[in-house]
């Protein structure tokens, strides 16, 4: 049986659509709050996890593979194989703040973010001295309460930003889900993983 770690919520819903494309169905999904689901044919077990926890399950080998956002891979840099991107979970990592904030001309900046390393690296690259404040949720509050100049966060539709009077100032990189595999699993469970991997890639390519 192949064990796959998938982030709860939107990504899980999209992943299930992908699996269905090649005949792997989970009729139990969404019926209850179960965190471990077996596919109807019993070939795949899906473990629903918090997005940022996905790499841990795969790195330690508790799960053979996983679907995880590129943002998390860049932030945590886990020791796993990153086989290919999937056409799901698309969004952008952005710097956001009040319209007209001219960050390129700032000598120093205070940014609030859940992605401390990503934010630090980005401002370092621009040569702007940055103080990063780690915030775990509702990051939009930080500039509104004058705690920071800007935020570095994932933007999907931009609705939350707009409703709070903020807008995207710069796009840092595109985010999409990546299919990751445990190092030992890829080698030692290759015969069972191979068809699954191939089918998943084909299904994802068709989704464009």
């Amino acid at each position: 049986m192949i064990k796959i770690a998938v982030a709860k919520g939107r990504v899980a819903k999209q992943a299930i659509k992908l699996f269905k494309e090649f005949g792997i169905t989970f009729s139990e999904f969404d019926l209850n709050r179960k965190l471990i689901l077996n596919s109807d044919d019993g070939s795949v077990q899906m473990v629903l996890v918090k997005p940022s926890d996905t790499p841990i399950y795969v790195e330690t080998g508790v799960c053979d593979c996983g679907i995880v956002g590129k943002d998390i891979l860049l932030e945590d840099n886990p020791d796993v194989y990153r086989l290919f991107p999937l056409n799901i979970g698309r969004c952008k990592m952005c710097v956001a703040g009040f319209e007209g904030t001219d960050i390129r001309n700032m000598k120093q900046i205070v940014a609030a973010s859940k992605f401390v390393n990503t934010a630090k690296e980005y401002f370092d690259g621009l040569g702007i001295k940055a103080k990063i404040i780690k915030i775990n949720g509702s990051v939009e509050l930080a500039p509104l309460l004058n705690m920071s100049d800007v935020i570095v966060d994932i933007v999907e539709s931009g609705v939350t930003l707009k409703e709070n009077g903020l807008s995207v100032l710069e796009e840092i990189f595109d985010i999409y889900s990546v299919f990751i595999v445990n190092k030992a699993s890829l080698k030692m469970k290759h015969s069972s993983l191979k068809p699954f991997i191939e089918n998943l890639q084909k299904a994802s390519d068709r989704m464009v």
Partner: protein
Amino acid sequence: MLHREDNTQKKYAFLKDTLSMFYKKYGYEQITIPMFMPYELYKKFNFSHQNEELKLIDGNGNILVIRADATFHVLKTVSTLKSKENEKYFYEAKVFRNINKDYTLDEINQTGVECFLKESDIVDSDIIALALSSLFSLGIKDIRLDLSHADFVYSLIEEIDEIKKDEVEIVHKFIEQKNRDDLISYLDKKNVDKTYKDKLIDICMLFGDFEEVMSKARAIAINDKMNDALDKIEGVYNILKLYDLDKYVYLDLGFTNAMNYYSGIMFKVYSIDAGGEIINGGRYDRLARKIAGRSGACGFSQNLDLTAQILEDNNDDFFSIDYLIYCTNEDIKKGIDMSTELRDKGYNVSLIEGKNFKVVDRKNNKSLKREEIVNLIGE
């Protein structure tokens, strides 16, 4: 929980005992290596990994690194020893790394062997045979060994003018991660020629069955150094056949030479139960020359924390005591004589005070009857 902790200690003792006995059988001598090393030396020889090492400041204000890389400490130790003909050492050590993730251990228990002999298929395959057989001696059989060679990827990248020396690590990292997507973007950004690009992308997934991957690799090889690397791997593989170990051996030409550490054959042993590599090794002649003044070196390290994780929880071998002898003040003489006799016969015996005299067979957890004691040691 208590019970579990108890067994963990026994597992480590069992691992260390069994492995050191095994290494000795292959002609290795134990050495002890220092705990501290000046930070300057870590920097000088490029052993410093992104501030992963733990440091402290001594009384004179010098910065010391707490052992973060066992091989480096072995090399520094060996540099102080007189060189000899058959120089093979093993060590058992903790290494400390500040990996900065909540779920990784900062304290890693390792054993390892380092053989200071110049490159040859015979020497290299002997070390690989030792790596595999030492795992078998622990009862671990569900494993797989991947072979590679440092020059295969390196001498391909060397040909590509668009990739500068300090950018090689980036390409290595993407190949190591089998991350074709980011590799393609990177090579495109650098305007790398399509022939090279296609080869590098193919190398990411160049792993699996030995013969099959070898023939694919031959098609990818475009210079003598790449072909020499493959010849070398084949030479070692052919000897491993004579050890009857070839069924455990696969290829993965997509694992690369981080920090330019290795100079020849490289190998990793995977276990599915450990969720990753338990053994990591290869040949590192450049470092052996530079640091220890030896003509060459090949070795491996084994992660004992992951190995302990694979061992079955209840294994008789973990119990190092064979007999428990309980005695009172009245029969202490009998107790001493009996334990001396049993120890002379090679058993491990623990003598303790008890309410009345008895001999307990620890493995079977039962008291011996009088006639059983007589059978064991005579009247």
